[in-house]
């Protein structure tokens, strides 16, 4: 089991695509749940329970779609590459380390693709669990969730800028602006009574 985990992390470290999937789907998860949060905040018709159910519903849907989508896509792409390599080598690669590694890689990527949004959504929704358990007031849950979301968005922007060796602060703030844009759009929709 420990070896399986070590292999899993080794693959993630070696394969940049896993990192890309993680960041991309984290953004998806964060911004999706942020949509629910803003909608709930502006409509003021929500309860902690409803926000948790909606958020987790989105998280589970993204988890399944992430795993399935990444698995099917990666499998097809990698299979194509393997067939091309087999043609070059004039040899079947069944049972070799290359094929086993590829299988492990596809599973690892699919898992990351599914876990990334769900994990982020659960973290962002955590204050609402506290609110449901009467540990913090409902309004505070919103405040804490927005703060966690801002930190998560900033961290992703920061991390991406670090990879690209760009201005980390600016990129962190840009990511937060994406979140604010969602809030503004939902606010406008609410104001003109479209939703």
């Amino acid at each position, binding site marked *: 089991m420990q070896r399986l985990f070590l292999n899993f992390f080794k693959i993630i470290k070696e394969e940049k695509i896993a990192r890309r999937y993680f960041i991309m789907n984290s953004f998806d998860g964060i911004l999706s749940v942020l949509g629910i949060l803003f909608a709930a905040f502006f409509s003021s018709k929500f309860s902690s329970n409803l926000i948790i159910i909606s958020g987790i519903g989105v998280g589970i849907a993204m988890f399944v779609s992430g795993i399935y989508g990444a698995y099917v896509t990666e499998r097809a792409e990698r299979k194509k590459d393997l067939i*091309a*390599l087999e043609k*070059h*080598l*004039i*040899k079947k*690669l069944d049972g*070799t*380390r*290359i094929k086993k590694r590829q299988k492990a890689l596809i599973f690892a990527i699919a898992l990351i693709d599914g876990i990334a949004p769900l994990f982020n959504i659960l973290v962002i929704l955590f204050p609402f669990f506290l609110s449901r358990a009467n540990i913090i007031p409902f309004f505070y849950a919103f405040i804490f969730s927005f703060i966690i979301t801002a930190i998560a968005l900033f961290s992703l922007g920061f991390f991406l800028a670090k990879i690209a060796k760009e201005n980390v602060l600016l990129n962190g703030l840009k990511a937060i602006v994406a979140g604010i844009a969602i809030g503004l759009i939902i606010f406008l929709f609410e104001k003109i009574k479209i939703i």
Partner: protein
Amino acid sequence: MGKKKPPVKVIVLDILKPHKPDIIELSRVICGIKGISKVTINVYATDEKTESIKATIEGSDVNFEKIKKDIEDYGAVIHSIDNVRTGK
């Protein structure tokens, strides 16, 4: 009782391999085989998917079959044995 065959001390192999594992990793794999003490790899051709290499493998008892099995596990193919030195 048959006479023990004299051990192979040096063998030069012409190998076609995928880009991964790279030659550093492949040399370590070969060098990890019992009886092998030194591995030198030269790349002489590269294309989009593969590399052609010459591997000079030295040791007290170089086991060709074991080398073949191990490197084939990494997707590499031995094209030919280009040089061999056997001695007691």
